[in-house]
């Protein structure tokens, strides 16, 4: 089977080894095991330097000191004195560890217990590691060869059997340690992988159920408040949000079907009327115009829904620019002041000379206009409306209050949902999208929206409502 096919097959039908090697937990554990082994290697290096290395250096120092002492003696007293000294040293070497050789310039052996110099002897090389046979017993030795001024050679050496045994002992110990460490690294990696898999299994199972179409399951939390619980909490928050959005979409669909049914049915009946009045051109024209107006209302609702979606998607953020809110408020007050006046209402305004802000002018104007539109709509004739704005720390506070029927606490939490209309507002014309757009615009600008009780009317039976916007300056 070609390697690529095998790879694909192993991914489709993972065996235990493949699952182990492809696991993130295993890779993490392997990384730590590698670091641990590197630390172990560094420790081994230090240990080696301090034991086998120290013994090496000690042996070399002893050999060199002995050779230098003999060379000095040779310079002082010649071959015979060095021969005597070598004989003396050998006579006292009860452990039979030393090796000496003094040769004449012509290579003739003068003293010592070594048969000859090493085969590859070169005058410019002083240190040799040699295999040494001593009375039929093989071993290893370290040899230092000095070329004397008349061409003679002086070789001094020591058996290094002890050092070799220590080195073997150390190597064996370290190799066993490395083997066991690697074994535990793999075992630890396997355990870690299992632990991670066990902790992630509930999240994976929940995700699988949700992928199957059921949005109700949530990731069970262990209560340890660790990273996995935080991940589970994030997933649950995300799922709550998705469920809320799905519910909203479903609500919007229902609301669109419900709210548009009336104007569409009305338009249909106008058209039917037009059919009946086909003989009267004036009645026909009037019926068609009313039908068109009804269909325009439908179109406006769709435009409003699309605009809210656009604002919520944040697509308009690129059009943000520094602006002064005051001219915008003036425009809105001019527009709705006239309407309020027509209804016998009074619009009171108050704001400072300038209110600098960064945002989208059109959207902000639309938001303020929607608030004023609601205020005019719900305030009875003779009532008062106020539009106020002020600078508060690093934000602009806009407040629109009326003397309308107000909003219950329960309704205040639902205002902003598309097509939501409070019970008391059912008799008033509107689509239930005005405050949805306001909320979306405020969120786009990073601000907050809340409701307060407004200014009660003189009779006290209308609590009034104040809608407050807090828009950060930058």
């Amino acid at each position, binding site marked *: 089977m070609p390697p690529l096919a095998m790879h694909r097959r192993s991914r489709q039908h993972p065996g235990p080894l493949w699952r182990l090697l492809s696991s993130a937990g295993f890779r993490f554990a392997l990384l730590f095991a590698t670091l641990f082994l590197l630390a172990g290697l560094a420790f081994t290096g230090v240990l080696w330097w301090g034991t086998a290395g120290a013994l090496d250096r000690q042996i070399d120092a002893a050999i060199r000191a002995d050779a230098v002492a003999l060379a000095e003696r040779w310079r002082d007293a010649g071959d015979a004195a060095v021969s005597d000294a070598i004989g003396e040293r050998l006579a*006292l070497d*009860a452990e*039979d560890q030393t090796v000496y050789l003094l040769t004449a310039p012509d290579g003739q052996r003068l003293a010592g217990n070594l*048969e000859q110099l090493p085969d590859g002897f070169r005058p410019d090389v002083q240190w040799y590691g*040699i295999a040494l046979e001593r*009375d039929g017993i093989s071993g290893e030795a370290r040899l230092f060869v000095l070329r004397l001024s008349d061409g003679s050679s002086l070789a001094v050496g020591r058996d290094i059997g002890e050092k070799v045994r220590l080195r073997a002992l150390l*190597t*064996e110990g370290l190799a066993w340690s490395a083997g066991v460490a690697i074994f535990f690294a*793999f075992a630890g990696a396997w355990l870690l992988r299992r632990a991670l898999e066990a902790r992630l299994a509930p999240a994976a199972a929940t995700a699988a159920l949700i992928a199957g179409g059921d949005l109700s399951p949530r990731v069970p939390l262990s209560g340890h408040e660790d990273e996995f619980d935080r991940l589970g909490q994030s997933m649950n928050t995300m799922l709550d949000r998705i469920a809320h959005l799905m519910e909203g979409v479903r609500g919007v669909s229902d609301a669109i079907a419900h709210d548009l049914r009336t104007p569409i049915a009305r338009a249909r009946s106008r058209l039917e009327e037009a059919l009946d009045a086909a003989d009267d051109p004036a009645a026909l024209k009037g019926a068609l115009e009313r039908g068109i107006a009804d269909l325009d209302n439908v179109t406006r609702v769709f435009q409003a829904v699309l605009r809210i979606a656009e604002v919520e998607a944040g697509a308009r953020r690129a059009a943000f620019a520094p602006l002064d809110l005051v001219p915008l408020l003036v425009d809105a007050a001019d527009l709705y002041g006239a309407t309020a006046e027509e209804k016998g209402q009074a619009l009171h305004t108050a704001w400072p000379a300038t209110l600098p802000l960064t945002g989208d002018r059109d959207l902000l104007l639309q938001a303020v206009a929607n608030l004023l539109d609601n205020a005019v709509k719900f305030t009875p004739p003779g009532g008062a409306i106020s539009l106020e704005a002020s600078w508060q720390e690093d934000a602009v506070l806009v407040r629109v209050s009326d003397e309308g029927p107000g909003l219950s606490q329960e309704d205040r939490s639902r205002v902003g949902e598309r097509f939501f209309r409070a019970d008391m507002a059912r008799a008033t014309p509107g689509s239930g999208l005005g405050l949805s757009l306001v909320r979306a615009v405020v969120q786009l600008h990073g601000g907050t929206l809340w409701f307060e009780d407004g200014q009660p009317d003189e009779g006290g039976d209308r609590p009034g409502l104040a809608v407050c916007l807090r828009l950060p300056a930058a």
Partner: protein
Amino acid sequence: MVPCTFLLLPFFAISATAMDGGPELRTLPQGVAYCQELAGRLAPLPGAAREPARSLAAEGSALCRDGHVRTGVAKLRRALRAAQGR
């Protein structure tokens, strides 16, 4: 299993340490003559007559005579060290 392979590492390591030191050199064979040379070095020393040098020397010479030269040489060397007070 992969971990079992790692357990074999020590054996590889041990075999790797048994290295060869290249062509072999030899020391001169120790004979009875060398035993006599050592005994000759010992005799004039003041401590040669004292224990344990005296008995070590006697044992060494006897071993050499019996053909156990290597052991005899070792004994005689120990006798020399003892006689020199080392």
